[in-house]
């Protein structure tokens, strides 16, 4: 396996509950991997482990060839990782456009020294970044909301901004946590298109979703998790035909 992201024997438990049970997984450039499973299966925990929100107990995480499991969150992001969140996590004191501008890969204007000494290049960069943000907002259909306070938009709209925000840094790997939850009808097609375009551009994308038909539409490969384990991997049809898995998903015991 040579993926952009490789997870090897990843293990994490909290006070007796195992959220990642020696997980092995990898995502390659250009592919969209769907991650499904009942609540409590460990899907978001896996995202948290990969992005660095929680440290693993054992195992390794390799991102673009670098071993990152001991690195802090911001370091991993700079190597080439971007994610979205289940509860959007818009910065609530800022407008939509500011939420976008804070997500750039480089940020010369966020250093007092550089503001003082390199005024012109800081301004030029801000100009570039604003244009890029506009393009991304346009792609998700929210360019007209640019100056609204991000927190005043609807949940689904914030989801879309979250996706656009994750694209600002040109990260090689995208982790999307329930990007479709709350997204209203017409925007559905738009978001699918954006995610496909990003994969075609060479990113490795992993999507957690409960909407099975969405996963079927979009993913090249689907992984089923339960109780912190990867139980099966294949196409959505293969997985849904397996009655054991559907039992676990729809009628299974809660892991906790």
């Amino acid at each position: 396996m040579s993926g952009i992201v490789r997870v090897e024997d990843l293990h994490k438990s909290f006070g007796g509950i195992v959220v990642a049970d020696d997980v092995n997984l990898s995502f390659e450039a250009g592919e969209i991997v769907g991650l499904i499973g009942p609540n409590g299966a460990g899907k978001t925990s896996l995202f948290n482990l990969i992005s660095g929100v929680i440290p693993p107990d054992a195992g390794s995480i390799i991102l673009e060839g670098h071993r990152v499991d001991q690195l802090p969150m911001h370091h991993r992001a700079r190597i080439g990782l971007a994610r979205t969140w289940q509860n959007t996590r818009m910065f609530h004191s800022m407008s939509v456009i500011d939420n976008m501008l804070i997500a750039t890969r480089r940020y010369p204007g966020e250093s007092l020294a550089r503001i003082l000494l390199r005024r012109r290049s800081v301004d030029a960069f801000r100009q570039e970044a604003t244009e890029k943000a506009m393009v991304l907002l346009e792609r998700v259909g929210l360019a007209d909301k640019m100056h609204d306070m991000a927190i005043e938009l609807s949940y689904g709209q914030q989801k879309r901004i979250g996706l656009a925000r994750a694209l600002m840094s040109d990260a090689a790997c995208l982790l999307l946590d329930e990007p479709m939850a709350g997204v209203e009808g017409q925007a559905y097609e738009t978001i699918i298109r954006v995610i496909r375009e990003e994969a075609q551009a060479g990113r490795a994308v992993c999507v957690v979703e409960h909407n099975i038909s969405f996963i079927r539409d979009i993913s090249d490969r689907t992984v089923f998790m339960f109780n912190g384990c990867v139980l099966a991997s294949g196409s959505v049809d293969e997985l849904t035909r397996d009655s054991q898995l559907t039992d676990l998903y729809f009628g299974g015991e809660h892991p906790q």
Partner: protein
Amino acid sequence: MEYILTVMVLIGINVILATSFNLILGYGGLMSVAHPIFYAIGAYCSGLLAIHLQIPVPLSILMGAGIAMVLSFGVSLPSLRVSGDYLVIASIGFQLGILHVINNLEFTGAAGGLTNIPVLNEGPSRSLVFVLLIAVVAACAVLLVGWIVEGDYGRAITAMRNDEEAFSALGRNAMNIKIVLFAIGSGMAGLAGALYAHYFAYVTPEQFGIFTSAALLTMVVVGGAATTWGPLVGAVLLTTLPQAITFLGLPVSIMAPLQGVIYTTLVIFFLFARPQGLMGGTRGGGGLEAWSASAAFRARRDAE
């Protein structure tokens, strides 16, 4: 007239203290109770340097501020690398610890305080000159903080304060910002302390304890966290109000705790009723806004 000028000096000092505290607490969202101790460090270090090493007063003032700034790393570095919660604990330890040292060390005058501090200026109109100086320094303080929090850097500070984890996930290092804000804010407090010491020529440890911490919190919270004018309004109000109360002629043993009760009650009231303070707007403010009415909050609550 002299009395009014003295009050104006105090207002100026408090403006510097409140503005710098607002940078740390209001804009940065960093909870520290150690601001009074950096005020003390500036005062004592500058005073001691002038007394024992005969360093000219303007230089010793700058050195006092510099020492306060450097010592701030002693609080921010150990605690911020772990998590934001630990900063408040470290600041409590630092505040109480240094205060204990000042209170017990002969060199600093112990509980009696440091006396005979050389003054910055002398002469018949020294108060007036000093008032003008303080006004300029206070104005610079307000402008400096205003400059720091505008533009791209201000956006980074706000994002860090709003949601540090999401901020880190975007590749930003929150710790650097926190350390810078803490250093600049503490340095400014040290400057205020040094200026105080070389005007009044006498400082005691009592001036730098929890009473000052309560007063500063009141100025920032009541005035308005994360606003330009909030600390100014807070400082003016809280310097003049006690002066008004002195005219009631109450005994001193009642005055001090009464002021304390008033300050703390005001803070608590504002925390519940108007967290954005007097000068804060209802949207996009400092770290204390209650945004329970927001759509995202409702969505998150419903989704769980």
